[in-house]
């Protein structure tokens, strides 16, 4: 695998994670439990879609063809490289918060290290994104604690969400030859090295929230970086891509 192909894959993964989670959070717009939370979810969504534009735009540039929009709207599910966690449906509010908590804890650690890598565009995007996901992680972890240490119902729903989403957490650290090609050149972060710190963040917050860390000895999904996805991604793309596919090159 050439360095350029590996960089393209790496940017797709980062961009697709942000894009798919950003789209999921945008589904909350107008449905938030309170006005401030509605605004918060829309803000996080906007940050993520902005990050996606950066990484997908760079990926398109590396291939010398198309644009960020082409990559977002003209690929099918098997060509998406996001982890399966981010495509999971919103469920209840606890599910949405647990999903973003797991993801933003990873993104926080990932961007922090990525900001120190060699490629100027990627490290610049990482430096910018880091500050944004720091807010996301703080917001979600605050909610996990409030929900876990809240009423019996909020505790139970949050524990259920943890159990439901836990089998998508191993995949967050999945790597392949693209990562290996780039890590040796200081162009990417070895995700496996982030596992311990990710566990520390999760354990600390769950402890404060009086929630139980789910048992690791269970089936764990993998394969998002190879284009393997749950059935939910296709439905998400059907909605997200409808307009540019039905009316190609249309302008607002």
């Amino acid at each position: 695998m050439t360095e350029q192909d590996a960089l393209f894959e790496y940017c797709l993964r980062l961009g697709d994670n942000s894009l798919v989670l950003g789209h999921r959070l945008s589904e909350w717009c107008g449905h938030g439990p309170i006005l401030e939370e509605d605004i918060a979810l829309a803000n996080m969504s906007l940050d993520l879609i902005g990050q996606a534009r950066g990484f997908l735009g760079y990926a398109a540039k590396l291939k010398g063809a198309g644009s960020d929009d082409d990559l977002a709207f003209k690929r099918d599910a098997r060509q998406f490289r996001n982890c399966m966690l981010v495509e999971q449906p919103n469920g209840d509010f606890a599910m949405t918060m647990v999903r973003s908590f797991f993801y933003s804890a990873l993104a926080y650690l990932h961007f922090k290290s990525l900001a120190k890598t060699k490629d100027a565009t990627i490290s610049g995007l990482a430096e910018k994104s880091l500050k944004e996901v720091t807010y996301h992680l703080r917001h979600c972890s605050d909610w996990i604690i409030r929900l876990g240490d809240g009423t019996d119902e909020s505790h139970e729903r949050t524990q259920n969400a943890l159990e439901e989403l836990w089998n998508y957490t191993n995949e967050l650290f999945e790597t392949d030859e693209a990562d290996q090609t780039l890590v040796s050149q200081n162009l990417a972060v070895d995700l496996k090295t982030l596992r311990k710190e990710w566990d520390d963040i999760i354990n600390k917050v769950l402890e404060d929230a009086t929630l139980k860390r789910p048992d690791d000895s269970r089936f764990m999904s993998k394969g998002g970086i190879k284009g393997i996805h749950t059935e939910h991604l296709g439905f998400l793309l059907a909605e997200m891509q409808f307009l540019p596919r039905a009316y190609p090159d249309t302008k607002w």
Partner: protein
Amino acid sequence: MKISSHPHIITSTHQIWDILQTIPDPEVPAISIVELGVVRNVEIKDADSVKVQITPTYSGCPALKTMEEDVKEKLREHGFINIEIETIYKPAWTTDWLSESTKQKLKDYGIAPPQKLTIEHLIPIGKKNTEPLACPFCESKNTALTSQFGSTACKALYFCNNCHQPFEHFKCH
């Protein structure tokens, strides 16, 4: 819009900076896009052509597109025909680029300006030991965070317990 033919010849980048200084931030019009730190570099290519580098405040800031259009329109008014806008990401925008006078303008506009960014502001979980924020209306530090997310990506919502006024804070970033 009328494209004028060189009302006066612009030869120095200082003049361009002065022109861009007159463009207000679309979302916080109390300050200009230069004061905000979005404009990073200006290069005159020839009598008709200029290149402007800008950087986004937040990745998803929807105002960036408006700023690009505003820059193009303003420079066209001054006789430039080929205006190239390039978005750059490094160095990443920070509120530490806002000068003291810019912060004062935000405060006069009713927005609590950003404090100097410290490591405390960037702690992702647990308690933050940051300075309490002063209300831009009554100066009281008896204020409370309502939400980290506000009407635009760059602002948080606060409430002043002293004068009972909700207000916005331009987040440290």
